[in-house]
């Protein structure tokens, strides 16, 4: 009989002890599997949903600063960007030209709502035409008239129905008050907590009229990539290419950094900014990464406690089985084999706990992914079709597996070494 099979048999001899120790390991792994799975699910949904609400996975903006210190966002020509995109052979599904307004007042006959407004192309063939989930109305011929699209919650607050007039009050690029009337063409599914990011959509030239910009001008050039995960690398390549063409750029950073640069810097002509989806999501992703790190640290603390338990348990086991060790040694079993017998026991226990914890954790995630969360409206930006997405990160699992097996082995090593160092005569003399 091999040492490994003896170790397995020994584990089954002490079922209660094995179940308790293995159960503790399983619980720890279950917690980390569920936390990692949930955060991965939320990040994946968030990334997918937000990428539909922002003007691109790579975003370019231009800004001028007037002599009075006012910053005017403006882009008049997309050719230089398009040429760079083509030169770098960036695989994209769509490029967009958007005039974005951070805050406007949407005024109906009953109420007012303050939010962002984007002048976009929403007609058939456009990126958002396919990505926005329209719950009422439709987007055909959207770009040809005074149409506006708003979210469900905003429609409810404004108490408006399709065809109703919505007056939009906002500032021109130079800060003058202006009002343009729109008519409600469609209502899209509420993005919950991301409503401020989504805002309202209207045809580009009508929003330009509100901003007192010329037809065809825009503030944002967006690139929707075929593979979102390449946004950072391609964004950096595009940034370098455009800088090499002589375009003046602000240093890369998030939206907050740009606001500070606008405020603190002085420049002539147009100066550009480039963001990627990850720059925009950096803060939210940071929260989830911190959550994962905290979960991992909790797991480590839990396993330090479990290690102490394993060490004590195996000291007891070695004590209880001293005569047995003496018999095995007398029958010719070598010191390393005795040591390995106990080490294998601990490692098998750890592996069993990991397997059970992982499977139960995955089962919980599968169960959660079946729950209909349509009532969880405020957070549906974190869901896919009203459900959590099942996400099991095998990389994290492999890391956790290595850590737990390593810790279990270390915990059992010293009692195992003590067992291996016992002489047969000494062990057989023991009276316990």
């Amino acid at each position: 009989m091999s040492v490994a099979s003896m170790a397995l048999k020994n584990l089954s001899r002490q079922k209660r002890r094995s179940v308790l120790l293995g159960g503790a390991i399983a619980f720890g792994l279950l917690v980390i599997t569920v936390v990692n799975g949930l955060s991965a699910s939320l990040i994946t949904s968030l990334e997918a949903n937000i990428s539909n609400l922002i003007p691109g996975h790579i975003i370019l903006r231009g800004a001028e600063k007037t002599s009075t210190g006012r910053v005017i966002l403006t882009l008049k020509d997309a050719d230089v960007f398009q040429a760079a995109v083509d030169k770098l052979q960036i695989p994209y599904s769509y490029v967009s030209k958007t005039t974005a307004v951070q805050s406007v007042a949407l005024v109906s006959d009953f109420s007012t709502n303050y939010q962002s407004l984007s002048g976009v192309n929403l007609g058939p063939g456009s990126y958002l035409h396919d990505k926005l989930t329209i719950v009422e109305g439709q987007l055909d011929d959207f770009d040809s008239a005074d149409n506006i699209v708003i979210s469900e919650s905003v429609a409810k607050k404004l108490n408006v129905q399709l065809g109703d007039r919505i007056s939009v009050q906002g500032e021109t690029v130079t800060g003058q008050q202006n009002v343009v009337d729109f008519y409600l063409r469609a209502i899209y599914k509420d993005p919950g907590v991301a409503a401020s990011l989504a805002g309202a959509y209207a045809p580009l030239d009508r929003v330009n009229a509100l901003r007192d910009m010329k037809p065809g001008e825009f503030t944002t050039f967006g690139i929707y990539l075929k593979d979102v995960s390449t946004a950072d690398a391609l964004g950096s390549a595009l940034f370098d290419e455009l800088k090499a063409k002589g375009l003046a750029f602000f240093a890369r950073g998030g939206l907050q950094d740009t606001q500070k640069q606008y405020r603190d810097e002085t420049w002539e002509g147009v100066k550009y900014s480039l963001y990627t989806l990850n720059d925009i999501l950096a803060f939210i992703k940071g929260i989830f990464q911190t959550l994962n790190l905290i979960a991992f640290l909790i797991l480590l603390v839990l396993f330090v406690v479990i290690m102490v338990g394993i060490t004590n348990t195996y000291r007891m086991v070695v004590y209880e089985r001293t005569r047995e060790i003496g018999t095995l040694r007398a029958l010719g079993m070598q010191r390393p084999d005795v040591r390995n017998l106990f080490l294998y026991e601990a490692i098998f226990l750890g592996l069993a706990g990991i397997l059970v914890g992982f499977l139960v954790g995955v089962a919980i995630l599968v169960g959660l992914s079946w729950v209909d969360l349509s009532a969880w409206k405020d957070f549906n930006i974190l869901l896919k079709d009203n459900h959590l997405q099942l996400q099991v990160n095998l990389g994290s699992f492999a890391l956790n597996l290595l850590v737990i097996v390593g810790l279990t082995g270390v915990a059992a090593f010293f009692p195992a070494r003590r067992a291996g160092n016992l002489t047969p005569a000494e062990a057989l003399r023991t009276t316990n």
Partner: protein
Amino acid sequence: MKRLLLTLTASLVLASTVFAADPDFNAILAKIDDQTNFKKTDISAQITVTTRKPSEPDNVLQAQYFRRDTEGKFLLLILKPEINKGQGYLKIDTNIFFYDPSSGKFAKQTGAGNFQDSNAKNSDFQNSTLSGDYTIEGSSTGALGKLETWILTLKGKTNEVTYPKQKIWVDKATGLLLQAEAYSLSDRLLRTSMYGKYLPVEGKYIAQLVRIQDELKKGEVTTIKIENFSPEKLADSVFSQAYLKKVNE
């Protein structure tokens, strides 16, 4: 010949009557600024901003108001309600900074931005700059209540004034602004402001009650009441970001 002379004389009389009736409107506009701007001293007062919106309880906000017209500065420090206490608005040069003590940070705002959740704009708290900002496009006379007024149509000199067009009612007797209609670039009436209870102080005037009626958001009205007015010189340090931080320590 006699007929020609008669026609000429009649034309001259008519013309002189017309010219005599038409004062220098630019001077009237300048007088509005001059009478309400305190060039020899600073001013401070307590203001109460009450905003009424349909189906909502009244929103009442109290603030301490400091203004230095010689440098075009003002500072508003919110005292009530408790949730907004310590927030402040500071205008220096053309910049308006909003301070939030909860974050300890300043955010840049524009004059066209709304003051808190009211119908007043941040620029409503700065000194009057009508003659510098607007040219006169048209004029007429009319009554506003019992008062005879000049009605002037103003157009912004630059595209950076908050309202591209305004129509103002000026009291013929005192030369004070009584009412102003503000229009959007698309020529939509946005709001009507009424100025009342002028308090004379050392040859200058300050309206102790301003009523701003939003013409787009029907039923929304904001009143600004000015009390405990004081025309005393203030320390330079009042008009600084450090002051807003210090009072919140």
